[in-house]
């Protein structure tokens, strides 16, 4: 069953581009990644799903119901964590959580305490006095306290230290095992990679591809940078699977996909002074999708 169905969703703001003709589905029980650079339209899509903004054309269904028409009904089962969290500054943490819980017709006190414990959040503090990271933790507790069936996260990890990020991911995995579906938007591929089953890649307001993480990993690109003692022949690294090859004096750059042993052997045969093998960043992955489209 599809928890989210997005059909030809388009949103334009005056003349500027929002999102164009976006379609994808998120299945029940999935952790679905939604990645793209800043300004690609991730937040626009998410805000439309939450009926904060209204689509210009197309529609989206959540739990099989139209996300605008049945918004209040649907939102009972949605937990949302925005990229930047803002709450009523003069309230105490616990009061805000109680206020948040009062919108859902169930007792969430126990769950609030549990989540605050996991996320190490001080319930007695004033919101105004919280650091950015602590506000984010409050956002997480606030988004999960009513045990939603669908968790929507818009760049949730900014401001969290690695330890908290780890705890947060574990929390998401637990919720997921209990049956919650997660839509996770991010511009960092690595965090999506470790958590998600499938990802949609969005660029400039359009979906570039929807793929399984396992497929993406098969497409695993490595970025090579090699510094050699002597200038190399331009064709030396021109192997199958090498792209964007650049040779400048003693420095060689390229992206590689395929069997790593071949390249490493090639490197071993040269007299090198240094070598860097890195994960390509998102931009470079996108480059790959653009090349494929052409």
């Amino acid at each position: 069953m599809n928890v989210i169905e997005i059909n030809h969703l388009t949103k334009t703001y005056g003349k500027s581009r929002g999102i164009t003709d976006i379609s994808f589905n998120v299945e029940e029980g999935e952790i679905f990644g939604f990645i793209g650079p800043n300004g690609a339209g991730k937040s626009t899509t998410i805000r439309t799903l939450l009926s904060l903004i209204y689509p210009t054309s197309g529609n989206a269904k959540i739990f099989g119901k139209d996300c605008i028409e049945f918004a209040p009904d649907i939102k009972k089962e949605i937990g949302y964590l925005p990229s930047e969290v803002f709450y009523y500054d003069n309230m105490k943490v616990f009061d805000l959580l109680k206020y948040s819980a009062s919108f859902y017709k169930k007792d969430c006190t126990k769950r609030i305490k549990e989540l605050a414990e996991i996320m190490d959040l001080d319930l007695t503090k004033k919101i105004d006095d919280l650091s950015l990271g602590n506000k984010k933790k409050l956002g997480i507790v606030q988004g999960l306290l009513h045990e939603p069936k669908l968790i929507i996260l818009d760049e949730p990890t900014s401001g969290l230290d690695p330890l908290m990020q780890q705890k947060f991911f574990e929390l998401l995995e637990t919720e997921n095992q209990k049956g919650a579906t997660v839509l996770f938007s991010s511009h960092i591929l690595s965090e999506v990679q470790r958590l998600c089953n499938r990802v949609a890649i969005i660029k400039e307001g359009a979906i570039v591809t929807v793929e399984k993480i396992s497929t993406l990993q098969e497409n695993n690109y490595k970025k090579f940078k090699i510094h050699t003692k002597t200038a190399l022949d331009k064709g030396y690294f021109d192997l199958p699977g090498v792209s964007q090859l650049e040779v400048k004096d003693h420095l060689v750059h390229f992206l590689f996909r395929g069997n790593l042993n071949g390249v490493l052997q090639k490197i071993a045969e040269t007299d090198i002074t240094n070598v860097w093998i890195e994960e390509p960043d998102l931009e470079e992955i996108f480059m790959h999708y653009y090349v494929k489209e052409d």
Partner: protein
Amino acid sequence: MNIFLHELKAYRKSTIIWLLSLIAIMVLFMSLFPSFHKDAGEFTKLLEGYPESLRKAIGLDLNNLFTIMGFYTYSLTFIVLVGAIQAMNLGTSIVSKEAREKTADFLLTKPVTRSTVITAKLMAAFVSLVITNIIYGAAAYGMASQVKVEDYSLKMFLLLSLSILWVQLLFLAIGIVMSVMIRKIKSVLTVSLATVFSFYFIGMIGATTGDASLRYLSPFKYFDPSEILKHSGYELSYVITGAVIIGIAISASYYVYAKKDIHAV
């Protein structure tokens, strides 16, 4: 109900401050009444020296200024102004504060419709204003009883005092419709002071020229205390105009807010 209570609590502090200011102005004016009354002859002579148009603009009516209701009427021109600023502030901020403090995302991703949100907020603002008027009215009644030199009509006193609430409701409605139309209000006080004073001055000009059509342009003059005193009641045409304006402004606010895109911060 939860939004209503939350909002009511949020306005508590400002309501108390506005209420105290209203009472302070009222007490200040009314405490002057005994000496005004004693030296009525000299004051009349002095005030007759002022041009008539000026007297009209600031609502000075020498015929009844030295009766307690006449004097209260005169103080009300200022008290209503302060009350209007309170109401306009409330109206302008109840919706726009969510955008300014960036809490709209929190509230509107909850399982509530936008009209529920507006209703709860309006009700909270309305209740704040009613509470303000009840306590103010009690204080004014107590003060008037202290300084009175002759008996006065309680009905008249109530009609006059309630003009504060009616003007406040008008400005509450104007404030809320402005706040949903303008995309982002950076400073509520700037918007509300500008609006309230513009209408106040239109009202003053109208009073000077005696132009009846100008009177429709200023909500202050719909429940003009000196006219209430003159007619011993409200004027139906203005009551209806006021009610229509409130009705249109509130419905427009619901409509616009329901259709509005809530943009990310």
